[in-house]
């Protein structure tokens, strides 16, 4: 009799635990979609960054090109926190370079994203003012913002 009670209780507990587990870990296919979209967004940032860098590497940079790409980058950077819903990290079966520390230190992560948005904003403003040196200096802080975040929150290859 006692054994039966223990057995039933055990099954009940296991059932509850299983239910909790399923609720806590969403469908891997859904997470994969989030990760894929995130990677695509970051590539957009990378493209804007490359366009800015390549333009500023020219002998006669077109600051309008720098400005438009910096605005695109700023808009994307402001969205960064929304690309990281909780549970979209390195789940079983989902490959991602987004480290768990993102969700453990979410405020710090959001500050890093804001750093990039502000670097892009300053670059766009400097480019709009037509000051090449100021544009180059501001653009220089974009790479630092990327690295500053990657060093902590992105898995090293």
């Amino acid at each position, binding site marked *: 009799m006692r054994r039966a009670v223990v057995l039933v209780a055990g099954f009940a507990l296991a059932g509850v635990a299983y239910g909790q587990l399923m609720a806590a870990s969403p469908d891997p296919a859904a997470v994969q979609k989030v990760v894929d979209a995130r990677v695509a967004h970051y590539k957009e940032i*990378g493209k804007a960054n*490359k366009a800015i860098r390549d333009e500023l590497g020219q002998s006669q940079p077109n600051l309008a090109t720098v400005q438009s790409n910096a605005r695109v980058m700023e808009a994307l950077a402001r969205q960064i926190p929304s690309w990281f819903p909780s549970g979209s990290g390195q789940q079983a079966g989902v490959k991602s370079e987004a480290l768990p520390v993102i969700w453990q230190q979410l405020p710090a992560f959001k500050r890093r994203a804001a750093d990039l948005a502000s670097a892009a904003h300053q670059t766009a403003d400097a480019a709009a003012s037509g000051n090449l040196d100021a544009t180059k200096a501001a653009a220089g802080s974009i*790479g630092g913002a990327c690295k500053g975040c990657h060093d902590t929150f992105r898995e090293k290859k």
Partner: protein
Amino acid sequence: MRTEGGPAPRIRLWDLPTRLVHWGLVLLLPSLWWTWRSGNTLLHEKLGYVTLAVLLFRLYWGVAGSTTARFAQFVKGPRKIAAYLRGTSPLPIGHNPLGALAVLLLLGLMLAEVGLGLFAQDVDGEESGALARYVSYDTADWATNWHAWLFDLLLIAVAIHVLAILFYLVVRRDNLVGPMVTGRKELAEDLPEPKMASIGSALVGGILSAAIAWWISRGFTL
């Protein structure tokens, strides 16, 4: 010159430029790996341009260098390679027909690796190869991935190269490392000595290679 244990003729096998290229690459490869691994991308790039110059020089030396450095002298077809493997061909001076394949493989992989690096970009968007600005983001991304994958292939090729040298040392009782350091080798029989190229020829090649590598590192601008 010391002539130990009898009158074995000691000939000049590898000239100084060939040895410098060889040991230079031995130093550059781990340095390139380390600078990348430790995140020192700027130094990684600079060392990459040095490697490019060294490889360009080796190509020049493969045409204008001493006989043992020339591709036309040591690169053989499948029939000669098979004969060497069967042991029916006379012992060659310098690279044997099979070793020639290793030279081509290593040089080819290193050239491809450096070439891809010229178009590669780092994840932080701070640094990129000198020619990355001439291609799209996606192409640079592609080059970056292949730059990483090819390095693993290069490591495998280096491992084969080192294992082959160990095989010659242990099984064939033939020390290949010594001559690559001193440039000299004792031959068991009298064979025609390799013809050494002049220092002037090496200087011309060195200056040319350095100039071309520098120009590429500037993205073809002056």
